């Protein structure tokens, strides 16, 4: 096959996978199931049937190369998959699993199709050699579905301060559980004394980690940025529909100039957030990954607040209730923008890098970030 044929065959597979995700989500994510999984409204359920259906389709390994047993989607398509999960408010860590499995495979690990969660690096776990493997010390805090998943991926630091990428299976003791603003579980697990075999400790690939930025945090931020694009699309789409359907003062809301301007402003934020997340998607496994992810998390996080506020303003009191589905998007936006590093944290990292380089280095950096020669 020529290069073009390959690309077209790849596009066809990508299209099939995305259609399949869309179909599975539409079929399973009924209002009743979403309500049952909403921990803010009571005890959260783990929708096991839905996970089984997703796993059966091979989706957990979507971004793992074919040679290593995955589907081998491009990162751009995997990002589209994650955005669809974000659009539909999927209450499962499929996005974390897709990216985590690919990171683990890139570090030379053998990825399985079980659910995998990512441990934010807020309070570092320590690691030390022990018998045939290693022993951990510390807590994994704020872990999405940490109490439900069979495996976690985390960055741990040894006595010399060297970071390691660690997979912890059957993570065990739940110390604390609570829910984010969207009602998704964010659990704390005690890992002190847990031993892991040598095979489950790796060096993260250089593109995923940079000085001071743990690899799991950067991959988690990448995931949240792509999810936020999906939720932003849902929020804007719902506001546009509502503005056209809802009549006030004898005409649809959409005919009021003030409403049009609010929606145009929201569209600008969605467009800019999408452009930033597209860039980060294109930079997966590239030396630009951490910086592009920083830009995407910062820009999507900034858009989240504006678009959620406009979405609610347009929907009026109706959107302020659990009876209207808008909250599934906006509560996630308010949670995701602060997870795996807030937009301010990522902005600070970008700002420190830019200031360290000086004004003359900024333009070449921007050109390189977009894929040029700097």
């Amino acid at each position, binding site marked *: 096959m020529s290069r073009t044929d390959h690309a077209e065959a790849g596009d066809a597979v990508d299209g099939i996978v995305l259609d399949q995700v869309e179909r599975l989500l539409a079929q399973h994510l009924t209002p009743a199931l979403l309500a049952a999984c909403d921990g803010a409204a009571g005890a959260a359920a783990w929708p096991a049937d839905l996970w089984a259906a997703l796993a059966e389709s091979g989706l957990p390994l979507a971004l793992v190369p074919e040679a290593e047993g995955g589907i081998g989607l491009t990162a751009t398509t995997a990002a589209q998959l994650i955005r669809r999960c974000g659009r539909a408010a999927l209450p499962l860590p499929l996005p974390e699993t897709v990216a985590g499995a690919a990171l683990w495979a890139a570090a030379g690990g053998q990825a399985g199709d079980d659910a995998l969660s990512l441990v934010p690096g807020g309070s570092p776990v320590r690691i030390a050699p022990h018998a045939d493997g290693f022993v951990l010390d510390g807590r994994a805090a704020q872990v999405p579905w940490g109490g439900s998943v069979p495996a976690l991926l985390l960055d741990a630091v040894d006595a010399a301060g060297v970071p390691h990428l660690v997979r912890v299976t059957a993570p065990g003791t739940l110390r604390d559980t609570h829910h984010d603003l969207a009602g998704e579980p964010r659990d704390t697990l005690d890992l002190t004394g847990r031993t892991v075999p040598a095979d489950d400790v790796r060096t993260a690939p250089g593109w995923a980690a940079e000085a001071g930025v743990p690899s799991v945090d950067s991959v988690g931020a990448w995931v949240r940025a792509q999810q936020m694009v999906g939720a932003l699309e849902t929020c804007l789409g719902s506001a546009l529909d509502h503005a056209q359907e809802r009549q006030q003062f004898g005409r649809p809301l959409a005919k009021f100039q003030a409403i049009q301007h609010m929606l145009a402003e929201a*569209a600008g934020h969605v467009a800019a957030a999408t452009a930033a997340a597209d860039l980060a998607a294109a930079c997966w496994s590239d030396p630009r990954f951490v910086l592009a992810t920083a830009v995407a998390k910062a820009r999507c996080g900034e858009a989240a607040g504006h678009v959620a506020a406009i979405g609610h303003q347009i929907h009026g009191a109706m959107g302020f209730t659990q009876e209207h589905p808008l909250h599934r998007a906006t509560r996630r936006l308010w949670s995701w923008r602060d997870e795996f590093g807030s937009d301010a944290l990522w902005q600070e990292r970008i700002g420190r890098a830019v200031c360290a380089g000086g*004004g003359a280095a900024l333009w070449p950096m921007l050109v390189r970030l977009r894929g040029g020669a700097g």
Partner: protein
Amino acid sequence: MHSFRFSAEPLPPEAEAARASVRAFLDAERAAGHFVPHRTSWTTFDAAFSRRAGAAGLIGLTLPEAYGGHGRSGLVRFVVTEEMLAAGAPCGAHWIADRQSGPQILRHGTEAAKRAILPRICRGDCAFGIGMSEPNSGSDLAAVRTRAVRDGDDWVINGSKIWTTNAHQVDYLLALVRTGEPGPDRHGGLTQFIVDMAAPGVTVRPILDLSGHHEFNEVFFTDYRVPDAMRVGAEGAGWGLVTEELAFERSGPDRFLSDYRLLVELVDRIGPEPDRFQAVETGRMVAQLTALLGMSASVARLLDQGVVPGVEAALVKDVGNGFERAVPEIARRLVPVEPSLTVQGDAFREALGGVTLRAPSFTLRGGTREVLRGVIARGLGLR
């Protein structure tokens, strides 16, 4: 579902290859002291700079070789454009001709007009102004009242134009005038003409901007004669032409890089060890700018493919102008100085002063923010 897909593909190799040549030209210009980056902007009129840029092959990149151009892609031109902006080069004597008037004449002008004007544009020796706005019309172009009446092989124009950038220095205006009735949608009866500023019957009144700089003008036409060969497009087709032209005017990096040199001076002034406030706000601006560069390159790619992405272009301008307006406001919060145009030797203070006084124009030129939001709302299906 409204989703925006801005291609994150890198620019093609031939476009990236052009970067080295434009940088070499700009380095030589700076080394020779031909411009001081923070004191000039892309609207700064410098005829000698434009002639040297033309000689270096940096103008008329997309125009055909038959008319003195270089027959390159729009993305090559995009790279040259963004490098000029990032360098703070004074492009005012060729910018409008290169960005919109030249391409319009190529697509819709007569052969005589193309032969007479395009080679001069490519040499950097022919400056254009935009003759759209009129007193009392503002962004409402359908309100244009300047009238052209046919007289044999000529048209006779009476009326006036306003906010015409560098009208006192340009060779031509591409003017939108009324030649017929507006019709029910108000978009009819408008026609574009190339008007020669050296012909009799035109007078120019300077309008000083907030910094005391003379860039704007009001232009008066009194029985001003234009040959029919200088008509651009069919009689009455003006609305469609300016709509198309505005997609080029609205989506370029000149809609968010106007004060890029202030950002550079700010980073240098903060120094390598920012406090947290400075780091966060600088990073926030850079994240916004990176997204805009991606959006703008995507739209350039669509324009290059012959698509006229009206809504995406309007989004670039709306988001881009918001960014441009915010930069001086953020800069003054990060570094406490008193801005001034008359203190030399403090590039940050000078740049902040200049940009603060120029910034109100960013959300006006090329269509006000409010008009742009109407265009976006239409694209979203709201009107």
